[in-house]
């Protein structure tokens, strides 16, 4: 079993790194950390949803809806209420999509969520009076444009996402979620409220991604539909969670750090066009080489090391007896 300290380690590390970066105030590292934190939040949210067997390709819908809701509501009802509106609208959208796709399984679910995300993008372009059309929209700038405070706020959101993910991996939810994924009929027969749990996971996931999207829009105070609704934001969470290790909290964190670091390297080597080639290459290599992700590999190494020490102890024991 995990000890209390290892469970707290992610929180402590996130806090320390965020504080250190805010203190040191190097623009490059702050921007990199903001990028890592935002993608990590979306990946954690995606993973929470996937624990109920809902493998989504629709994260971009919530990412975009989050940033657009903040931008549309802020002039109407003020900043604080606009952030609440982000939560409400994303929760409603998640409930709607969750109910619509309730009966769909596997690939059908993936395709339907992908279709939903792309429909959202078209919706934005078709109603330019509200959304600014393809020209984009201006959400309020986060923390008056001070990158250090932006990082601090996004770091807090990441901590919240980590706490939620941990809570949903706790004894109260974990068995229900995983039973819904592997044997939905058995879950229903055992008294697990399958529909309510699935929608609940959808809402938690959708709201987290929406908040991340709203923060992203607030970084520069300007977003266009092709930026926040792009399929990238649907694929990235799936890729990061899978590469890092699904059904864990550390997995998406490690995955986000690894993939973002790699992206930076590729961007400086290849340049602005086509640098995402590393995503493709890494995904393929991971799927072939370590389908259980980074966490799976670490666990394997851990058990191997554990066995070795156990074997060593036994040997010593035998030597002592001899």
């Amino acid at each position, binding site marked *: 079993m995990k000890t209390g300290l290892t469970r707290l380690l992610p929180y402590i590390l996130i806090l320390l790194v965020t504080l250190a970066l805010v203190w040191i105030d190097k623009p490059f590292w702050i921007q990199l950390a903001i990028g890592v934190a935002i993608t990590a939040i979306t990946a954690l949210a995606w993973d929470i949803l*996937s624990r109920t067997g809902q*493998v989504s*390709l629709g994260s971009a819908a919530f990412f975009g809806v989050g940033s657009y809701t903040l931008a549309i509501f802020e002039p109407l009802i003020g900043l604080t209420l606009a952030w609440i509106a982000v939560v409400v609208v994303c929760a409603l959208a998640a409930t709607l999509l969750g109910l*619509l*796709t309730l*009966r*769909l*399984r*596997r*690939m*059908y679910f*993936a*395709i*339907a969520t*992908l*279709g*939903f995300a*792309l*429909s959202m993008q*078209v*919706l934005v*372009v*078709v109603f330019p009076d509200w959304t600014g059309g*393809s020209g984009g929209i201006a959400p309020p700038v986060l923390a008056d444009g001070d990158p250090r405070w932006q990082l601090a706020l996004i770091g807090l959101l990441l901590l919240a996402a980590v706490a939620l993910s941990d809570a949903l991996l706790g004894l109260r939810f974990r068995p229900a979620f995983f039973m819904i994924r592997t044997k939905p009929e058995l879950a229903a027969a055992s008294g697990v409220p399958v529909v309510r749990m699935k929608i609940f996971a959808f809402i938690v996931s959708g709201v987290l991604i929406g908040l991340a999207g709203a923060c992203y829009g607030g970084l520069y105070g300007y977003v266009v539909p092709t930026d926040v609704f792009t*399929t990238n934001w649907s*694929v990235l969470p*799936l*890729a990061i969670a*899978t590469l890092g290790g*699904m059904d864990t909290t550390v997995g998406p964190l490690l995955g986000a750090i690894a993939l973002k670091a790699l992206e930076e390297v590729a961007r400086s080597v*290849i340049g602005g*066009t*086509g*640098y*995402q*080639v590393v*995503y*493709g*290459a*890494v*995904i*393929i290599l991971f*799927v*072939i080489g370590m*389908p259980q992700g980074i966490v799976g590999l670490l666990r394997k190494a851990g058990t191997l090391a554990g066995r070795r020490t156990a074997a060593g102890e036994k040997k010593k024991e035998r030597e002592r007896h001899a």
Partner: protein
Amino acid sequence: METTLLAQSLLLALTTAGLYAAIASGLTLEFGVTGIINFAHGEFVMLGAFLTYFLYEAAGVPPLAGMLLAGLAMTALSWLVFDGFLSRVLKQDEHNQILATIGLSILLINLAMIAWTPDARVMHAPPLLPALHLGDVIVPGNNLVVLLVGIALYAGMIWFMRHTRQGLLLRLAADDPQLAVLAGVDVTRMFRLSFLIGGLTAGVSGGLVALILYVQPLVGVDLVMRAFAIVALGGLGSIGGALIGAVLLSAAENLTATFVPGGGSWGYGVAFVIIVLVLVVRPTGLFGSERRA
């Protein structure tokens, strides 16, 4: 005037439906047999388009021959991809299966961007057939070629599935893989065969894309999204449904583009609304079976 517009719109829709049907039927065959949705299917079409384009512009190979060569090249690439890594993913979880072909898609798009820039190119080949005049309605010659080749590809695939021994085995592997194994069928071979056929049709379809559309790294994404809608409409795994789905989607798109004000940008939206609605109302599509759901 209104009727001429309507007739013109519907006829053009019919020709693009030929292209859509060819692309979607390859996608749906691969899914029906292996249970994997090939998100990189559009990128095989894109590579086929570039190949046909370069063969014509640089070496003067006539587009029809270029198309065939592109088809063969994509068959070879599919073989490489299947044996190289897709065959290992078949037994893994669904998220890994989704991720595998998405990874391939991202890889191919970005390699194409690095090699050929993201700019759109147009193949300057003379029309392969004279334009067809039906009263006031004109159908450009290249659109006719697209319709004919698209239908030929589609019909060829149907014939192969219904009237050859390999086609029979493919259908068996798709319907009941366990029974197929018991009957002594090499299921992995059948999986590979479905990807080879998918690659062949994607490559040739790429040649058609070069004839009537532009050639650029992202062209496959546009097309494969429409193919998803068609496949959802016709039923995942149903080749017969793919043609009807293609005609319906193509007609819906062209009609909105022609008659709805500002409908040009809607054209794309029609496909996605169809995906969501059909999957929600009838997850197996109009002609699909319950089994894979």
